[in-house]
Structure formats: structure tokens, C-alpha cells
């Protein structure tokens, strides 16, 4: 009875405060998710008045589609490589800039600026940089290295170019979060480790890194979700090619839904993407809890 009274009181007092956000989340986001699921059961081009219900066959099709699995594989490789390098660099930069570095503010700005640049602005620059008519080729030619910069045309190297672009762009994000996390570490702890004879690298490894664990977990979650949602960089630089070598779920959904007008199939892949994103977030969260125990 008392419990009900408390609940009623909460509903009366707290509800108006959360109502706008609740309506927005429940009414729009969840509506969109359910609508996408509904679409995923259709064979529909997005405009035609005729919609054919095909049940779960779009999901069957996705699971036997080699391009879908190629996109998953690319996502996994992309996440692992970018996550490790990006966070390693971000962590090191943050540690360096916590010491007495001259022009620290300038360095912080230089590291962070790529994060705020729109991929649409940078994509043509990278296309030019990594093309056989680009600046890098000119440099190699000037040095008589005999290297042809046709990496975007090669299935094996195109994905790595996208990783380089992503690492360049988002290292600033890792840096800023690690920098903030390092600012929260108790200075006495650092001094104690120094008095105990720990060197700089030992302090970084044994004191600073463990204290930044929650940041690393957050970055991992963001990394997984970001990798699954990756669209702009591959679409603008390689359009998913050559021959789907740099296909991601986002680019494949766009191609199926818009270019090939298989809206139902695109919706099915979108639902699978959502499930993967949730699973990834849960996995990282559980691993973090396991680590804390």
C-alpha cells in the first residue's frame, strides 16, 4: 500500500518533468523502430501503393547474402583496428599533454580539430590524396620511389585507407575523453607511485590506465556502435567498392533501400544492425562488470 502511494506520488510529481522526453523517445524513436520492423516484412519499393507481405524471408535472404557477411566482417576488422590505434594514440597524447608541454592549448586544438570536420568536406581531399593523380603520388614520384598510389582501387588496401581516415578523424575524440579522465585521477595516488619508485611508463600502465577504464569502456561502446553505423566515410571515399571490398552495413542498407528500391530488405538489414548494436553494447558492458569484479 505504501509502495503504491510512493509510486503514485512519483507519477504525480515526476511525470511532468520527464513527459516531453518520454513522449519524444516513445512516440518517435520506438515508433521508427517498430515501423522499420514492419517494413522489413514487406517487398516494397518505397513508393508503389502495392506492398507485398513476405514474412521473415528478407531476414533469410540477408543471412545467406555474402555481401551482408562481407559488411559484417569489414565492420569487425574496422572496429578492432580503429579502436586499438585510435585509443592508443588518444591515451598517449592525453598523457603527454598532462605533462608540462609548451603550447599545450595549441596542441590540443590541433589534435581535436579533425573530429569536428565534416566527412563530406574531407572526403574529396582524401580521395585526391590517395589517388594516382594526387599529392601523395606527386611526392613519391619526386622521390623516385616507384610506388603507384592506387590503393583505393585495390580490394585489400581500400579498407585500410578508410581506417586511416577514421583514425585521423576520431583520435581527437579519444584524446579529449582520456584527457578529462586523467584530470580526475587523484594526484596523491600518482605521487605515491612516484615515491614507490614507479617510472613514467609503469605509472601510466599500472595507475593511469586502470583509472581510465570507464572511459575505455565508453569508447569501446561508442566504437562498436559507430562502426556498425559507419556510412559517410566509406560512401564518400569508396562508395563501398571496389566490388564491395569496403561495404559496411550502412552503405549496403542505402544501396538496397534507395538505389535498388528493395526497401523491405534494407529495413531487415537495419533491424539486424540494431540487434548487433544492442548485443555489442551489452557485451562490452558485461565485460566491464566482469573486469570490475
Amino acid at each position: 500500500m505504501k509502495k503504491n502511494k510512493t509510486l503514485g506520488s512519483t507519477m504525480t510529481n515526476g511525470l511532468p518533468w520527464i513527459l516531453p522526453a518520454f513522449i519524444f523517445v516513445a512516440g518517435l524513436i520506438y515508433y521508427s523502430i517498430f515501423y522499420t520492423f514492419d517494413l522489413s516484412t514487406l517487398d516494397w519499393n518505397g513508393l508503389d501503393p502495392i506492398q507485398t507481405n513476405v514474412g521473415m524471408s528478407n531476414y533469410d535472404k540477408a543471412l545467406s547474402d555474402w555481401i551482408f557477411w562481407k559488411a559484417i566482417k569489414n565492420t569487425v576488422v574496422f572496429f578492432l583496428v580503429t579502436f586499438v590505434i585510435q585509443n592508443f594514440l588518444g591515451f598517449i597524447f592525453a598523457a603527454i599533454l598532462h605533462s608540462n608541454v609548451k603550447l599545450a592549448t595549441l596542441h590540443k586544438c590541433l589534435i581535436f580539430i579533425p573530429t569536428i570536420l565534416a566527412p563530406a568536406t574531407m572526403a574529396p581531399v582524401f580521395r585526391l590524396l590517395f589517388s594516382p593523380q594526387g599529392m601523395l603520388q606527386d611526392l613519391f614520384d619526386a622521390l623516385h620511389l616507384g610506388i603507384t598510389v592506387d590503393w583505393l582501387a585495390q580490394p585489400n588496401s581500400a579498407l585500410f585507407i578508410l581506417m586511416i581516415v577514421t583514425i585521423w578523424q576520431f583520435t581527437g575524440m579519444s584524446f579529449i575523453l582520456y584527457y578529462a579522465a586523467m584530470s580526475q585521477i587523484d594526484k596523491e595516488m600518482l605521487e605515491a607511485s612516484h615515491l614507490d619508485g614507479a617510472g613514467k611508463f609503469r605509472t601510466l600502465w599500472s595507475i593511469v590506465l586502470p583509472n581510465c577504464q570507464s572511459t575505455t569502456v565508453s569508447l569501446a561502446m561508442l566504437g562498436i556502435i559507430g562502426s556498425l553505423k559507419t556510412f559517410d566515410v566509406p560512401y564518400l571515399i569508396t562508395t563501398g567498392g571496389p566490388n564491395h571490398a569496403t561495404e559496411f552495413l550502412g552503405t549496403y542498407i542505402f544501396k538496397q533501400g534507395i538505389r535498388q528500391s528493395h526497401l523491405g530488405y534494407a529495413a531487415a538489414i537495419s533491424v539486424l544492425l540494431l540487434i548487433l548494436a544492442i548485443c555489442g553494447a551489452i557485451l562490452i558492458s558485461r565485460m566491464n562488470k566482469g573486469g570490475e569484479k
Partner: protein
Amino acid sequence: MKKSKVVGMGLAAFMLMTTTVLAGCSSGKEAKDTSTETSGEVVWWGWTPGSPTNEKYIEAFNKEYPDIKVTWKQTSIDAYDAALKPALANGKGVDAFQVSAGSGNGGIQVFGGQAIDLTDAVKKAVGDDFKDKLNEASISTMTVNGQLKALGVGTVYSGNLWINQDLFDKYDVKIPTNLDEWKLACEIFEKNGIYGFVQGAGQGAFNIDTFHAIADNVNPGTFTKATRGEVQWTDDSIVKALELWKKLFDDGIMQEGALGLQQYPEANNLFMSQKAAMVMMGSWYTSNALPDTMKSSIESAASKAEPFTMIPINFPDIAGTGNTGSMFGDLDYSTAVSAKSSNTKAATTFAVWLGTSQSGQQIIADSLNVVPSLKSATPDWDNVTLVNPEKQNDPIKAYLANAMNSGDNPRFGGINADMNQALMDVLAGVAGGTIKPANGADQLAKTQADSE
């Protein structure tokens, strides 16, 4: 308890209402037409031919219909479908829009359902015998379920190369007619720091053009028959064509890194800035032979080069069969009128003027961008001045005549979206060495069977 239940039920009802309202948003109704046949405001969506040509069309239209304001809204080829679908579904901001035959962007099979039937308007403007006066493809490919959903503005053809004649003269290079001559020409240009042939093989649609030209060189008509299911994609001619396609990359005719390059803007820019001597483009490229259009294209390529002499040549006989000069084409674009437009009458006037009137089609003809749909409209060569008339007039006249006589050989008209994607995938895979020609042919046959 009671109160919380009421609040909960209220919230649930509100959510249901919200979702119902949102669902309702996606099904727009036809708007009331506020325009007349001589006045109104028309927003015209499309991807081609772009400035300054579209503005010229509108300027000419306004001489006859000064009270109809037409606003040209252009998107890139790749972004067109993505931008147009929600706009049409919403029903606002689109009155007239470009559509195309087949599986390219703006496909009539996808967008035709959003357009009104223009049959009566065309009969009124041209007469009951309108089918005799207009290009057959203009009517047949735009008719969906017996309704004329759009009016073809003009046809584009492909199957040829464009060369920079000035560069060929400067370096004393023979115009290639077979594989060996083509290789030699590319080698000479390469030695002089210029790309011989350039193709943006990262943009698959243009690869289909090149492959179609090769297939017609191997065995004329096989490609078209394969798209119609009359010949298997595993036919020896198709496999041979795939092998020759691969050979273009292996023999150094395709420039290094071709698979990472886009035809637009990159390959086009290389040709327009005179850094490449040959490119695989179709009849839409003819307009670049006009000084103003060429200057604009050169500036778009961020180049300061002077206008140069470009002429069309036959695709070289790389199969050694002697089958050359094949061209294939279909409607480049047509104009449809949105069923949800509030300016239907004015938009219909514009679509009919552009697609069927003598004045509208004459300016289309003179722009050399497409071959007009109205049979009586041909380029007025007394008024059309090319960059180098002495060297360009005859080859371009012969080229356009050859294109119009190409017969039943559609470009994308017979290829559905799935086959289009499969062709792009297979051609990229064969070029990159990840798919063998015979396996590529199998893949095409499988997609054809699945899509049927």
C-alpha cells in the same frame, strides 16, 4: 493507484495517437491544383544536364509562358533517388521531375506511380497522331500500365570514345582502331606525361557502357539479347567480352588505379583539363563541343586550359571481328508531373513544351546534349558553332546520324536494378582479378534467373 492507472492509460493513448499521426504523415493526399495552363510556379527536379543548359531551356520556355515560373532543382546522379523519394511521398516542393528508362537513377518503374497520365495533354498539344511525331522510345518506355507517365526529352547513346584531337595531333598519334593501336596510343601519351585512356571504373554504370561496347564488338546484339533472356549470360560471346574487359586493365589501356576513380567528376575532369587523351563517354558529351559548355566544363575541372577539339571515334575493334560502330541508347531523361503537385496544370504545360513543342525541342537539339524526341527537331547547324568547326562538324554530324540509326539496342532500358548491380559487381570483380570471367558470367546468369 487509480490515478497512476489513469495517467498510464492516458500516456498509452497519447502514444497511440502520436504513432497514428506519424503514420498518417507518410500517406499524403493529392493537393488541390492552384495553377492554370499559363500561370503557376513549377519546381523541376532533375540531375541533368545542369547549368547553364537548364537555365537556357527555362529562359526559352518563359518567352512563351512568362507567367509560369520554373525553378530548377538539381541533385547529383547518385543522390537523386534518395532525395526525390521522400519529396514525392511528402507531396510538397516537387511539381515536375525527371525520370529515366530502365534501372538508372529516377527509373520510371519506381517513380511512375507518383506521376499523372500525360496522354490527353500530349494529344491536345501535338494531335492524335503524336506517336508518329515523337521518337518511339519516348512513348513506349514511358508508358506504364497503359498510361503515359512522362515525356521523353531526348535520347542518349553510348558505345564510342571521345578523343582530344589536339593532343593526337601534337604527339602525332594514330587514332586507334584495334587493340594494338590502342595500346600503342596509350603508351605514347603515357611517355609524354598524359593519360592515354581514362575511365572512372569505380563508378559502375560507365563500366556497363564499356562492357556493352566490347560485347557488341565480339558479337553484335548478344548483350541486349542476354538482358532479355534470349541468350544466356554464360554464352561464349559474353565470356569472351569479359576476358577482353579484363585485358583492358592488364594491358595498361585502363589507367592505373582506374577502379578507385569515379567517371564524374574525376575521369571527366582529367579529360577536360587535357590530362587524358581519350575517354568513354556517350552522346551527352557532344554538348562539350560547344565553346560555352566546354569552357564551363573546363572551369568545373579546376583547369585553365583552353577549349580544345574533341571528336567522337568508334570503339576500337579489340576483338578483331570487324564489328565496329555499334551504338546503344535510350531516353536520357523524361519529364513527369507529380500527382501530388499543387501546380499540376502549369507543370504539365512545361513538360509538354519541353518534350513535344518545336521550340522546346529545337533548343534541346541545338544544345547537343541529347537527341530530341520530336522527330522534326534537328540541330540547326547554321546556328550551332563548335569549338573547331572545320575538324568537328563532319565527325559529329556523322556520329549523331549513326546514333539515331542504332536500332533496337537499349543502353539501360532492358536492365533491371538487380541486374544493373550484378553487372557492376561482376565487372569490378573481373577487373580487380577477384572474379574469373567464366564465374562472372555464371553470377550474371544466376542474378538474371533470380530476378525473373
